[in-house]
């Protein structure tokens, strides 16, 4: 036990004091904040530049109605001007307008058809689907309104009668009823992605450390003092503690920032209800820790085994792929579980020990998973950990002293049976 502790302490202190850890811990949240924050900020940035749109409308009914529609209204940066075919004819006028678009005198040209209902929009850039959709909307409502009027109906009255009803989605939990505004899905994604990323990062980090001890030949000295199993256990626990430390620092940061953020926001927007913004249920955080620990042991042990099998990181790529697949698959299965978190398939998948960190985490975020399933999941994961540890300890014991050629799968199986 004392030896495991010694190995653990070395791995932990060595890593926590390293520049990589300090930089990663500081930059991690910044990167996350940037990922969330930058797009949000970007949508707030308004283009102040005036955008002139010509409407070729010989009839005039659309062009006159456009400035009233929301998209082209008073606060819009779009300026609509009506154009009619001049004496040279419609085709020639169109050519002239196209020339204006190319010369950037016009942002775009909207062509109202003489017959039929296909409108055309010509612009240098038609990739902005927000703009195109808004334009389509504006034009459609004008046309629909015109149709209604032609039938002698009152558009205002129609709108009133066809107004949609409101549906509020409320989530029922033991703690009460809570309003859902998509933050659950968001939280679910973020949580499972963090889990996935950290399992991968710490797993690979263990593998590297094993390979390093092999390639610097220090392992032989170590094994004259400590058994391979204790060495592996100390390493896995040490690196795991580094992971937990990082989470704690992040959680503290997060709590501080959201508390401060809520305070600031509260001062500016006193009437806004901010509780849903700040509030990550404590149970979700606890589950997160649980699934991190369970998943960590399985994957860290697997990666340690890979490290023992190969001589260099280059060599590890192929074998590593097999393990990484098990981590990537649940991410690919995410939509399935999100759509029906209670289905038999979702339950079965989330109980599979190699998938459960990510998938069970998702399920507890969305629904109340029955206690029996959580218990089963923990049980299966522990059983898988024991099995993996048993197998890998054997591989480790022999592989760690093997240099030279990478062992074949058959050889590895022989190691497992033999020792």
């Amino acid at each position, binding site marked *: 036990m004392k030896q495991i502790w010694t190995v653990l302490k*070395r791995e932990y202190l060595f890593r926590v004091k390293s520049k990589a850890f300090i930089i990663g811990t500081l930059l991690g949240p910044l990167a996350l904040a940037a990922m969330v924050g930058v797009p949000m900020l970007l949508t707030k940035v308004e283009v102040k530049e005036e955008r002139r749109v010509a409407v070729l409308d010989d009839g005039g009914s659309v062009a006159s109605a456009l400035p009233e529609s929301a998209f082209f209204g008073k606060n819009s940066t779009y300026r609509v001007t009506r154009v009619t075919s001049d004496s040279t004819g419609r085709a020639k006028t169109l050519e002239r307008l196209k020339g204006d678009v190319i010369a950037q005198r016009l942002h775009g040209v909207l062509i109202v058809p003489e017959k039929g209902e296909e409108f055309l929009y010509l612009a240098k850039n038609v990739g902005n689907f927000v703009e195109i959709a808004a334009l389509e909307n504006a034009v459609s409502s004008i046309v629909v309104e015109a149709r209604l009027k032609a039938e002698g109906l009152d558009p205002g009255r129609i709108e009133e009668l066809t107004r949609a009803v409101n549906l509020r989605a409320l989530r029922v939990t033991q703690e009460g009823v809570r309003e859902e505004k998509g933050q659950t899905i968001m939280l679910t994604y973020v949580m499972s992605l963090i889990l996935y990323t950290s399992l991968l990062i710490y797993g690979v980090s263990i593998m590297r450390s094993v390979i390093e001890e092999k390639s*610097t030949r220090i392992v032989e*000295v170590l094994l004259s*003092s400590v058994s391979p199993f204790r060495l592996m256990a100390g390493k896995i626990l040490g690196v795991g503690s580094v992971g937990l430390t990082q989470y704690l620092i992040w959680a503290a940061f997060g709590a501080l920032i959201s508390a401060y953020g809520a305070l600031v926001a509260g001062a500016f927007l006193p009437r806004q209800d901010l509780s849903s913004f700040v509030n990550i249920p404590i149970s979700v955080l606890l589950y997160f820790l649980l699934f991190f620990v369970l998943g960590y042991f399985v994957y860290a042990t697997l990666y340690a085994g890979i490290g023992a099998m190969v001589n260099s990181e280059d060599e590890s790529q192929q074998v590593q792929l097999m393990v990484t697949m098990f981590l990537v698959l649940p991410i690919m299965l995410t939509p399935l579980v999100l759509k029906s978190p209670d289905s038999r398939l979702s339950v079965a998948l989330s109980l599979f020990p190699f998938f459960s960190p990510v998938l069970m985490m998702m399920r507890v975020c969305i629904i109340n998973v029955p206690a029996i399933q959580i218990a089963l999941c923990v049980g299966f994961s522990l059983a898988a950990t024991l099995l993996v540890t048993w197998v890998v300890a054997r591989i480790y014991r022999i592989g760690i*002293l093997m240099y030279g050629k990478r062992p074949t799968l058959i050889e590895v199986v022989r190691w497992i049976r033999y020792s």
Partner: protein
Amino acid sequence: MDAIRLSNVSKTFDGLRAVADLSMSVPEGSLFGLLGPNGAGKTTTIRMILSIILPDAGSIAVLGKPAGQDVNKFIGYLPEERGLYRKMKVGDMLMFMAELKGVDKAAGRRGIDHWLERLDLLSWKKRRVEELSKGMQQKLQFIATILHQPRLMILDEPFSGLDPINVNLLKEIVLEMSRGGCTVIFSTHRMEQVEQMCDAICLINKAQLVLHGDPKSIRREYGKNTVVVDFEGAPDSILGEWPGVEKYNSSGRWAEVRLKRDADSREYLQYLVRHFRLNKFEVVEPSLEEIFIEKVRASNEADLDRSEA
């Protein structure tokens, strides 16, 4: 009591016999030479003594107990392939090694300072291991081997890559520890380095024990029929033209000549005087190296005969 006792130990790797039915013992407190050419099975034997690998058959007792992790804390092992944590600080790394062997913090700190001072590395204590020269790293590894005051030291090629001054320094420390009651095993293929120090040896070749005993009686057994000659004035091939010469081992101006059992060394001297200008002529016991070479050759030939038959 024996510090180590191997009884009928065998180990095979994927059909390759590394150690075959090896029995030997190392007396407690002795300076023991585990000799053999490269690939003879020395390192495998050592790894089994340390339970790094387990024997297929046979039993090993270390310091009176069955080999295993429990006795390992009394053993200091300097492997041939040196290995250190390159990114760690010298002092931290030594402390880690000491703690793994169960040394407490205070004693560890004292020991580290003492040995770093003694081996002239104290000013490097706070530096990273990778900043040290290769020779310094060798010394560092040696400190890691003795920090926990082992009762048994296993040194695999301990002096390779060191300058003569440091070799002497390490030898001095090893002898000190030996006087303090520590059993020392040198594993090497360079006999001249340990010949004067060892009071017991065993020679392994091709996984098997070839020779076992104390060097003095081994050499005596081979008799006083070896002559050391320092010569000038004629090619060394003439050395062997005398009918009483069994074989000779020459380096151009200096040779070790083995005479046949009934040959008279005085007659050989007369023969030599006729052909050479002699600077030295001495009748000696054969060196371990010579015995070693002969024994290895003999056992290889026996192997060959057996496989042909």
